[in-house]
């Protein structure tokens, strides 16, 4: 069972929810897909077991074979190749690794080499297996790392897997929720929170994912996120009140379910609710 936690807006509490859901379960795999800013490991402080470089393919030119025909330059839709001063220049950061330049080169002057863009680490902390991906600063796209993180060998079939997604609703989020059985949308009670909740709401609807909303940082005042859920008949899974103590524990990298009984209960019951929802979905829409 794969549960993705996403939010649209940053800082609403995705990692808080994902980490604590995994920690409160009997056994889980936690996958941190926010490869630009992976934070889950700061809470689990795992014992690292494995580290693997993630590379993409980029072209390199054999200048003896290149005759300057510029077919590759003209073909590249990403403008990653230029021919200046009788030399082919390759901008590796812009390259999307499509392999087109190799196909169009009449002289086989281009070859591919591996370029490391980040790492994946596997670790363990009590009952949780942790996979974390980290994109190197300066690299534009974490998608290849996310794909690798969510590859079959990391995601056990019949076990609970919690996927901590990046913010936004762009390609990286789509990759992260692609195979999820259920999506938890975490929302905060602000104008910004609602605007971005609406975006991920549209995204999960587009991909036909079963989902529910978790309202975080709830204040006694009117909650615009709750109003949005009511108006759109969206299932509210749970509410976490605004709590200074929770904020402090979280800012110190503590896992709150291990520190406070009431959060242990809150996240246990959230997990139960979600597991039931998924089981219902799989029987209703197999």
């Amino acid at each position, binding site marked *: 069972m794969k549960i993705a936690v996403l939010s649209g807006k940053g*800082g609403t509490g995705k990692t808080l929810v994902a980490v604590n859901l995994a920690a409160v379960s009997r056994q889980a795999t936690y996958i941190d897909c*926010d490869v*630009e*800013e992976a934070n889950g490991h700061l809470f689990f402080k795992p014992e690292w077991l494995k580290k693997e470089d993630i590379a993409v393919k980029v072209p390199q030119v054999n200048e003896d074979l290149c005759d300057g025909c510029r077919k590759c330059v003209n073909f590249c839709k*990403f403008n990653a190749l230029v021919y200046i001063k009788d030399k082919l220049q390759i901008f590796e950061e812009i390259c999307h690794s499509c392999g*087109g330049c190799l196909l169009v080169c009449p002289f086989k002057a281009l070859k591919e080499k591996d370029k490391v863009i980040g790492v994946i680490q596997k670790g363990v902390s009590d009952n949780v297996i942790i996979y974390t991906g980290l994109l190197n600063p300066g690299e534009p796209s974490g998608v290849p790392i996310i794909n690798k993180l969510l590859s079959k060998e990391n995601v056990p079939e019949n076990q609970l897997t919690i996927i901590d997604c990046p*913010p936004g609703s*762009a*390609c990286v989020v789509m990759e992260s929720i692609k195979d999820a059985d259920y999506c938890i949308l975490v929302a*905060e009670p602000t104008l910004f929170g609602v605007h971005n909740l609406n975006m991920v709401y549209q995204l999960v609807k587009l991909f036909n994912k079963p989902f529910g909303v978790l309202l975080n940082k709830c204040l006694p005042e009117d909650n615009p996120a709750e109003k949005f859920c009511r108006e759109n008949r969206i299932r509210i899974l749970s509410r976490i009140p605004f709590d200074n103590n929770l904020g402090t524990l979280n800012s110190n990298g503590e896992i709150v379910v291990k520190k406070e009984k009431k959060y242990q209960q809150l996240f246990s019951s959230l997990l139960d609710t979600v597991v039931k929802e998924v089981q219902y979905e799989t029987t209703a829409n197999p």
Partner: protein
Amino acid sequence: MKQLLILSGKGGTGKTTIASAFIRLAEAKAYADCDVDAPNLHLISNWDSPPARKDYYGLPKAMIDLDLCVECGICQANCRFDAISFKGKYEINPYACEGCSVCEFVCPAKAITMMPAVAGELMLYADAEKVFSTAQLKMGSGNSGLLVTEVKKQMKAAAKTEAKIAVIDGSPGIGCPVIASLSGVDMVLIVAEPSVSGISDMERIIKTAAGFNTRIAVCINKFDINREKSIQIKEICEKENLDFVGKIPFDPAVVKIINSGQSIVEVDCISGSEVKKVFQKTMGLLLKKA
């Protein structure tokens, strides 16, 4: 025109809240929201008239003409993005297609063409004095860096010559939209949050921004939620030789002010008066002759 870009690494540290305060305090004649994945600045910018809207075309996407397709599978074998599948017929997943044109090139039956595709929308608010450039990327789209570049271009093209300062609200993370927003700006203000996550992300955004040789200043938002971590942030600034421009306390009034569509300097509140000090220091650095 001096351009100030506001970044944070971690999301939700207060970029937009601080950007909106700065825009107000500077009476900025030009500003932009480069968080094209999840733009919010327009929600508290209070323009009377609607923006001029323009479709943003990303790279064209592949389309298969099934009448011409001979089902040879060469396109699928050459697509690096797993965008082509066969379920009784060959199909292209427009969300996975990155527009590289390899399939069009390899197809022996000329069954594939690249078709223009809308990947987002650019919006420009303008009146006699000021301009505000923003955009919204279409869900699930990639290549947000190109749209960020368009947002900045649109702002610069529309800005009046007397616009001295441009405030640019950035996006979280360190990836392509952030990298695109960094090019050409005069200074970066990082809004840091005193938490283990906030510090880890701040260090990564500092590394990313350092590659651009831009002046970097740091402020702490909600510094009092964890004073120890706030001290740690200041120490990092000293070590990295970054300008520290102040700290803003946690203020329960902020949520209400933002939810009423205002910036925190329009209402009398503690975060508003502290952000003014951060603003003064930041402007001092931005306008200082290099």
